[in-house]
């Protein structure tokens, strides 16, 4: 590219100042830290709302690296990740995308729900995830070798998914994978109590309800309630809302549209509270 003048504007990268609350469930911290040391990319698999994003935030803090999170969607293009030109007055400026910024500065780049992005975007991460560890920024005429601290993390929900959005083996097999699942009841109750600001007893009931909905997976629900939904309900309860109303609004309604399932969820809420 023979542009007259380019200035690189880095997307500002920030480091967390406070430790993001994360409750360790298994050996995920060790595995992630080891992968970070070995400069291997990581894939987090698991149902929605089970703590993947929170875990990455926590690990970024622990490793002392900045974190760049990109929520992928079907309009996300390569340019959105890598960068683009801007015109400012008479100047042409190059703006690094979040991925390029992370590669340059040695940050953790978290691509949330990567399968949602357009197919061509997965291609740009390939050279970053093998021994090359580099990002070709074609538009900008740059072959960017990754900073030693750069780390790529993607998330992927193998549950209910469109046939058009399966991850190709050639992409999958580049990652160290960590399986995430809902934490066990006692632990989940502690998380819900902490995050939602409710007492242990209420948190336990919420977790109990969550467990019941998870048994409806495939039999009325595509997926049971994740920890996130339970935390939402807890937050409403902490503000003084009646628990039944809170659970209906924060758990039952987001989960189901179908009348029999909706009604059954109402019955379960009434039974638990």
């Amino acid at each position, binding site marked *: 590219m023979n542009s007259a003048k380019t200035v690189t504007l880095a997307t500002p990268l920030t480091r967390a100042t406070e430790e993001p609350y994360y409750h360790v469930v298994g050996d995920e911290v060790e595995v992630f830290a080891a992968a970070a040391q070995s400069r291997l990319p990581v894939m987090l698999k698991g149902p929605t709302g089970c703590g993947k994003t929170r875990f990455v935030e926590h690990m970024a803090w622990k490793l002392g690296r900045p974190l760049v999170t990109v929520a992928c969607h079907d309009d996300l293009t390569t340019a959105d990740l890598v960068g683009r030109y801007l015109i400012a007055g008479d100047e042409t400026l190059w703006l690094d995308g979040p991925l390029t910024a992370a590669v340059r500065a040695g940050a953790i780049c978290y691509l949330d729900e990567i399968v949602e992005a357009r197919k061509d975007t997965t291609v740009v991460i390939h050279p970053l995830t093998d021994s090359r560890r580099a990002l070709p920024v074609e538009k900008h005429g740059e072959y960017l070798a990754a900073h030693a601290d750069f780390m790529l993390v993607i998330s992927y929900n193998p549950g209910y998914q469109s*046939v058009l959005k399966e991850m190709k083996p050639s992409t999958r097999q580049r990652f160290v994978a960590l399986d995430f699942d809902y934490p066990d009841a006692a632990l989940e109750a502690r998380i819900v109590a902490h995050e939602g600001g409710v007492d242990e007893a209420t948190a336990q009931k919420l977790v109990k309800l969550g467990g019941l909905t998870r048994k409806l997976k495939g039999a009325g629900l595509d997926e049971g309630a994740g920890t996130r939904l339970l935390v939402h309900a807890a937050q409403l309860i902490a503000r003084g809302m009646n628990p039944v109303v809170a659970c209906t609004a924060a758990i039952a309604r987001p989960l189901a549209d179908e009348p029999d*399932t909706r009604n059954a969820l109402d019955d379960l809420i009434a039974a638990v509270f």
Partner: protein
Amino acid sequence: MGQRKLFAHEIEERLDQMLLLKLRQRSPKEAATQLEAVPREHQECLLRWVGIAAQSSNELGWLIAVQGAEHAAELGDRLAGLARAGLDGFDRGGLEAARAALADAARVLRKNAIPAPQRVSFADIEARLGCVLQALHGRPLRLAVGARTWTDGETLWLPESLALAPDAGGNRRLYTQLAVMLWAQARFGSFNVDPEPELAQWDDRERALAWYALFEAMRLEARLVDELPGLARDIRALRGPWPEELVAAAADLARPAATAADSLRWVAERRRVGAGETPKFLHVGAMDPVAARRLRAARIARDSATLRRALNILRANDPHSRGGAGDESHPPLAAEGDTVPADLQAGDVQGLPPDAQAAAQSLAQDLDVIPPEILKPAGPGAWQPEERDEGESAVAAVTGKPDAVYDEWDYRRVAWRRDWCHLYETEGPAGEDAWVDEVRSRHAHLIRSIRRRFEALRGEDKAERRQLDGEEIDLDAQVEARADRKSGSEPSPRLFIHRRQIERSLAVMFMVDMSGSTKGWVNDAERESLVLLCEAIEALGDRYAIYGFSGWTRTRCDIYRIKTFDERYDAATRRRIAGIEARDYTRMGVAVRHLSHLLHGQNARHKLLVTLSDGRPDDHGDEYRGRYGIEDTRRALLEAREKGIRSYCVTIDRHGADYLPQLYGPAHYSVIDDAKKLPSKLAEIYRKLTA
């Protein structure tokens, strides 16, 4: 349903088809005349239940037809309740019990037919309750209408309807309370002690049982306080305070350590103090240890047979085994009795196929240990791989050379049966034009809304950048061109974005179950959903094909072309959809193989096979039934997957389908408990799958 009523002669014909009345010299005239008078919906309802009953016994079907027709006018949409009572009676005690249950139900139902706005019927609440119990239990529990409210630990019998509370909400809650209390019996060990020694000491056994049920209800309610406090509170409010003389018992039974034995202790206490009439509480059902034991015995027999068969096969396949089936030179069985159980206890169960594992688990639950006699190798009754093959070919009249032959997977041998299935492909018969028009006009609204949602999918255009022409300016290109111009080099004229409709590159095969069990509502639902779906997919422009499958043994596997990939959705296709009808059996594996072969030949990036069926694979003779059919179908789906074909199965099954996870893997199926929901559900599934 707004369809015209069936005439008596049409009803006669259908009854005759289902029950083979002519052969048995019975005349359906009277029943048909009675049925002619009621709305089509009720006619179809009864005919459907007769069909279901006929699968167990023609005579039972006939009983239900006669009783149902006689009371059809009065019962209206309670006909299903009558039929269910008959089926349950039959399961309990054969034809005699069915006859009694039908008479009972007819009496009760007629009484209940007096409209009461607060009345909630079992049919209204079944799906909802099933969902609640699935959440509590983790797997489906069978729900049925029964003369009494009770459970044997596997099935919950509930009243046909409830109108005790002054409002519908109250009656719905009462249903939930009854069902959860019954579930709690299984959950908290009501079946773990034998009440007979105590019951035997009573003159009035029924009274003793009523007391036992009451004390157990006290104990279980206390357990529910921890598990489901909200429900426990509702129950407490409903029952009010316990009578003075029972307060001590209630407190004792509320101890966390209390068991069913403690309840029996209180029954004995009642006997000693001279028990009066048992106080009645709405939420307390009945206990029937004798019936429960009978069902338990049947269950044990069934599980034992399954387990035994699996073990025999295991041994037959193991050349080092000393106890191969049919090994006559083998010394007496007793010698093995000591060693084999030891093996099995050591965790060998894990090596067994899933159905045998489940049987072993269920046996262990029923008996605590697996009795050694089950674990001994079977004698002459051992399974013979070829034993059914001759009988089968006698049934199937082979007509000409098959269009294709396919291998079939035999999980017992862990081997293929080569060229086992003979497949015939023919064009589906044409049905009535009027039917399609009627469906399209009846569902006009739904079709419009599905189309709209589907069109939104297509609306996701792909932006092609750097085009010579287009709807939008490509800013990136403009910037570059500007930079190029400044630096003196030739700017590219490709400065526009052109929005092109996304190329979905998707080919979808619909495989429709045309087995005999789909007769009636399921078949209607299948056809209606196909019409709706076609209308919707046309809006998307995806490539799709529809084929029906049925068959009669391995030498007669039929595939019916409804719409090939190249055919358009035109009047002829629509007629063939209308012509989809219930035929014979469900040999699913071969159908999957053939259709995925056709799908494989399609030039599309994504290939999707959607199966539509009403239950597990099955074929004439019991070979394909059960595990064999499930394993073969699963294998066929795996093969399809290897060819890059994804499959999704939609099953219409009122009683949940516990075999589906095994058949399809956890993420790729859904169960629809009500055929009426199929049309809108199927379109929704398709949209989600391909979004």
